[in-house]
């Protein structure tokens, strides 16, 4: 009983503090080393990692399509990473994710001001253009799509994952 009360209190305080600080607990910080952890955590599972940003025009168009893709493909681990340069807009990022139907996917936000280093850990050749999608197969093969992904290409890749499974 006490535990339950504590739990409710915790939830209440967390929600209150979350809204007071404008923070969204659903967004995970993406920091040094996060990329390797993401790869480890999803090893052996087909994983789609989508890099986007709140000020990126093409991202606004693509995000809802990706939301539908995630809904249609529960067998694919969908991860989004807000990769804008200033990581102080979790509320705006969360709002766009919610509207795109991506509330329940694993969502990160760049949380290190030294973005060159974050990007270098992911792909040394990446200069920061977004949107960008990385398709990670069960065997770890990474296919990178620069710019908006065609949903048909994602469907094709998804079907290949089922086939290889």
């Amino acid at each position, binding site marked *: 009983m006490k535990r339950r009360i504590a739990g409710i209190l915790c939830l209440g305080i967390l929600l209150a503090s979350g809204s007071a600080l404008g923070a969204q607990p659903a967004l995970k910080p993406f920091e040094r080393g996060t990329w390797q952890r993401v790869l480890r955590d999803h090893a052996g599972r087909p994983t789609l990692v989508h890099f986007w*940003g*709140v000020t990126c025009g093409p991202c606004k168009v693509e995000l809802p399509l990706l939301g539908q893709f995630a809904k249609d493909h529960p067998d694919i681990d969908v991860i989004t990473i807000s990769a804008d340069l200033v990581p102080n807009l979790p509320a705006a990022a969360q709002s766009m994710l919610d509207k795109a139907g991506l509330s329940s996917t694993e969502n990160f936000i760049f*949380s290190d001001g030294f973005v*060159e*280093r974050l990007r270098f850990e992911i792909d040394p050749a990446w*200069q920061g253009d977004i949107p960008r999608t990385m398709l990670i197969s069960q065997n770890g093969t990474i296919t990178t799509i*620069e710019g908006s992904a065609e949903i048909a290409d994602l469907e094709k890749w998804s079907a290949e994952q089922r086939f290889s499974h």
Partner: protein
Amino acid sequence: MVRSGLLGILALACLQGAAHGQMHGQHASEAACEEPMLRCATKATPAFGHDGTLWLVWMAGGQVSVANSHDAGHTFSAPVQVTARGLNLDWGPDARPKIVVDRQGGIALAFATFRDEAFNGQVLYTRSADGGKSFAELRPITANNESQRFEALALDQDGTVFAAWLDKRNRVPAKQAGQKYDGAGLFFASSRDGGATYAEARLAHDNTCECCRLGLAFAAAGRPVVIFRNIFEGGVRDHAVMTFTDVSTPGEIHRVSNDDWQINACPHHGPSLTVAPNGTYHVAWYTNGKARKGLFYAHSRDEGRTFSAPMAVGRPDRNPARPFVLAGAAETVMVWKEFDGEKTTVQMMISRDDGATWSPPKTISSTTDTSDHPLLVSNGRQSYLSWMTKADGYRLMPIEDQP
């Protein structure tokens, strides 16, 4: 007792959480601190006045401030805040405040803010007529309310201030007509009163890439030239230049290079342009096209109609980025950033034959945390690297002529 104990633990947990959040926030920020002072700046833009005074405009803590230096950046005057209150300044990677200083010491400024929660931009401008002691109230550069970003300013020989920016107003009629509109329009306006008021904004070119800085210079008196990432047929985001016939009349666009970068994305990585006293255009840009990838340099000796073959710049394994090129009377200097996984360096090379050949690249500065783009500025006799870094503050370094 139990309840108060629980509340105490929860309160402690909340406090710890808040403290962690603060520490986390500082680390996460690209700014060293959150005050309006220069040390906290994320973007700083220099310009020399005719009398040799260095002027610097910067954004820090949501404010835009200006100061000057009479000792080549060693010390600065007390800053004058241009913004009356904290604004949601455009923090896009290629955004920065702009400054030009005319022969009479008048200072024209422009910068963009995010006007709403959808990140629609607005270009604001102001002017100081009293040698930087005070600035006029900020005014929008155009009455139109569609998004504007990535403004650029340049000063003509007669004191005319020319402004160009990326503007999304033409999306509206396209949308109403059920048509797709890619990118943004390149718009321009000029000011005959040193940047106190601007003429009505006009379109130079539709459908340009909407998220990259412009390069702007004067090719000759009355003839602005702008380089921009265009959207060519098939969504190819390669670079183009346009030389204006006069400050009111746009010219033809010419492709700088056929890189074939077909991408529906925001590269956040715009070009650089300088015009040498003999009229040569020197340009530098980033591409990730099918034809070539990386940083490139080219020049044009026919007012931008044709360009030399693109010359690759920097080490491909070090992510060369953010090029800036500046032509002086005797030499042309180019700087850019490289990153080795831990450290960012500024690389520099010099050409003494108007861009035909270049010295080997040389590391002239470095930092171990995030940094602004490296910029070049000249007082007519000496060129300097101007570079804002999070870890080491603002730097102004003379470019040494020796390789």
